[in-house]
């Protein structure tokens, strides 16, 4: 069945099972790598995207339910060769070890900054709390979000 999705600003129709969770469609039909399978239970944030500005897990919700929504993935953040300010601070802070949770942390941080460009540390911690990180990179993620908010006022 044809499902119409708008991913990173481009509308595209894909022929998939409408019940298929968006995660698999983004990886297989759109060739994206940022969204990852972590738990399939909406517990870990690894599969986060921004759907109409909200950090949203994609491992359970059907692709059909995302029709008519603005889907943003980390592949859509950079502007030509210029990294998005939050990507920039994640790199500057070297906020990754294995990097598997990076997608979730970036999206969770970005969803917060889009609503509140000057969050407190508690607000940052609360926003990132939805994402599981096992390497213990937590404090670097917090720092990267904070730094981006200090350097920019609009996201």
């Amino acid at each position, binding site marked *: 069945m044809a499902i119409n999705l708008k*991913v990173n*600003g481009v509308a*595209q129709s894909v022929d998939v*099972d409408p019940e*298929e*969770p968006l995660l*698999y469609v983004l*990886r*297989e039909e*759109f*060739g*994206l*790598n*940022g969204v*990852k*399978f*972590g*738990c*399939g*239970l909406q*517990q*870990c944030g*690894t599969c986060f995207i921004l759907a109409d500005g909200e950090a949203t897990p994609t491992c359970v919700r059907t692709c059909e339910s995302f029709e008519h929504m603005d889907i943003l*993935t*980390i*592949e859509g*953040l*950079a502007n030509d060769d210029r*990294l998005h300010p939050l*990507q920039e601070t*994640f*790199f*500057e802070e*070297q*906020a*990754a*070890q*294995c*990097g*598997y*949770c*990076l997608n979730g942390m*970036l999206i969770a941080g970005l969803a917060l900054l889009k609503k509140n460009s000057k969050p407190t540390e508690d607000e940052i*911690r*609360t926003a*990132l*709390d*939805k*994402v*599981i*990180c*096992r*390497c*213990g*990179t*937590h*404090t*670097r*993620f*917090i720092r990267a979000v904070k730094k981006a908010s200090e350097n920019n006022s609009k996201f």
Partner: protein
Amino acid sequence: MDNFKTDRRNFLKTTGQLLIGFNLFPLTFCGIKEEGYAISPYEGIPERPHLGRNLIDSWIRLDTDGHVTILTGKQELGQGIRTALMQIAAEELDVNMDICHIINGDTGQTANEGYTAGSNSVEGSGKAIREAAAEAREFLVGKAASEWDVEAKDLRIENGVIYGPQDRKTSYWELLDGNFYEAKVTGNAKFKDPKEHQIVGKAIPREDIKNMVQGAAHFVHDLRLANMVHARVLHPPSYSSKIIKTDIASVNAMPGVLKTIQDGNFLAVIAKREYQAVKAWQKLKELTEWEIESIKILPEQLFDDMKKSSKATELVEDSPGIIQKIRQSPIKLKSTYYKPYHMHGSTGPSCALAQWNSSELTVWSPTQGVYPLQITLADLFGMDTKNIRCIGMPGSGCYGHNGADDVSAEAALIAKAYPEVPIRLQWMRDDEHMWEPYGSAMQIELEAGMDQGGLVLAWDTQIWSDTHSTRPRGDAGHYISARHLEKPFEFKKGNFSGGAYRNATPLYNISSKRLRLSNYDGPLRTSALRGLGAYGNIFALESFMDELAILAEVDPIEFRKNNLDDPRAIAVLEKLIKETDYHNRIQKSNTGYGVAFAKYKNSAAYFAVLAEVEVDKENKSFHLQKLTGVIDAGQCINPDGLINQTEGGMIQSASWTLLEEVKYDKNGVLSKDWNSYPILRTKKTPEVAVHIINRPEEKPLGAGEAAQGPVAAAIANAVFDGTRSRIRDLPLKEEKVEWS
């Protein structure tokens, strides 16, 4: 959008080329630059199998276009080893980092460096690469010198370009002209003086992070080979379950399903799309009935059973008359500590790809050891290792022996039943949680005697523990699914490794020390988890030191210093005092401070840590506020890499220590997901600070596991300081505190 498609095509193209021919070993896929895997084909020197560790070519290669390729048998596990090893090579070779590539473990071309474990990579592979790079530099400079008939010392090198007298100029690449060096690493090449280091010792950023933030392909999970299909394995509900009935035909009739495999109690599905495989797996789960063999030893019996049913006690270190010595000491103390089963808990469930072509097998794996994987697969399939190629790729952080090897073997088993196309197998969340081998539960009994002045005179340790390594090393029975086949492979636990008593012997200056280990065959599957026994042993040892310091009425840092001889150990404690302004710390009634120290394995990095715990007596709760660590890992290759690894170790250990314990009952493991096995998330993460003592003149020491044990004890000691209640059984839960 166009960009993604292009990248995807490129990725498919470059990775797909690997499948052109098994024996061609094309470089296109393997010539991975740090920028990621989605690169255009790399026209370098031809790839060739590893021909021995003593050849320069086994570690450092030059192409014709001005690149340096470094080969290592070690894997990138998120510890930043690629960057660190490239720094070492670039430094000795006198080239810039941005022209360096690195190839990780691949049985087709790299050295056999065993497992990437025990914090050995910089000490081992780093040393080999450093020697080879120094040798390569000497070889190339010598070649230029003899061509120009000048002295090597009169030549100047800048980024691989050699400048000589009378404006003569050549480069490494011109000199080698795309050929191999075909020269040996003699070990006589001179290393650079650390004082001249420009790259080693610098916080060079990991370029792979720049790719990851943009969603570039990086993980084995992201590998998409031409004609690839997807698989899932249906693991039994518990360790020794047997299939009573299943319904293969119904699953085979589902959309996209290509094949359902049953081999004894091993069940798997293959489908065209990943989600079709997931749905088929769910259906198979519903349609399969199992006979479950109950787990005999339940959690409440575990520690008693350890003492009752452990095999003969091994005397690791003896000191005749020690009991007498303890008895005669003015101050005596005895305590027992407990550690539960812990999980690696990788964020991404394990994933691997495999493909059979006639009699040849290729496996793309997140394993920590491609060569051990290769020999164990050879055992599984009864074939020659020369027909198996294992290519290591980054996985989700593993922190030891997680599901990576099992998933690789399972992908190979499935691929055998469905040959000629690449099979991508990823585990589901409960596969990883329930089937990975855990860090063993442990029980540690300590007894010591001390003089009035606080000098420890005698120290007696007894450990009860299951094995800390069941890594596959040639016996297929170490793969869980090999045990489930129609013709099952037997699992032989084999010799218990020294991992159980890692760091059990105190580094402190104690004249009488005894160490006994009782090997226990416990109810859950166990293997190597970051630090192995060191985590439990240091938790016990450093908690006990705290108890002794309190009895001796000496400040816990001073107490440790008084009992130490090693100046580097004393130095990390002194730096901790300075960095935390320890002696002027504010004595608040609601804050507890705890310190701990260890030299990892008694042979690697030195680490001291101060934990600050905020206590809320009214609400009977505490919160880990801050951890400050000091690390001496000898020569520091990359300070930010060292800090990142150490911070990570500290936070991970805080999570183990405060929250974690694998739950199970007679029907199997109950910790199946992040709700039933919660780990530390950002809200409760402590502030962390890491300070380095860099010793450029010393050899670099393994550091990745240094923080695990000390952090556990420091938190327990801080909880005691804040509550006057000593918790000796992990995790350190608020309900275990005796609130007064």
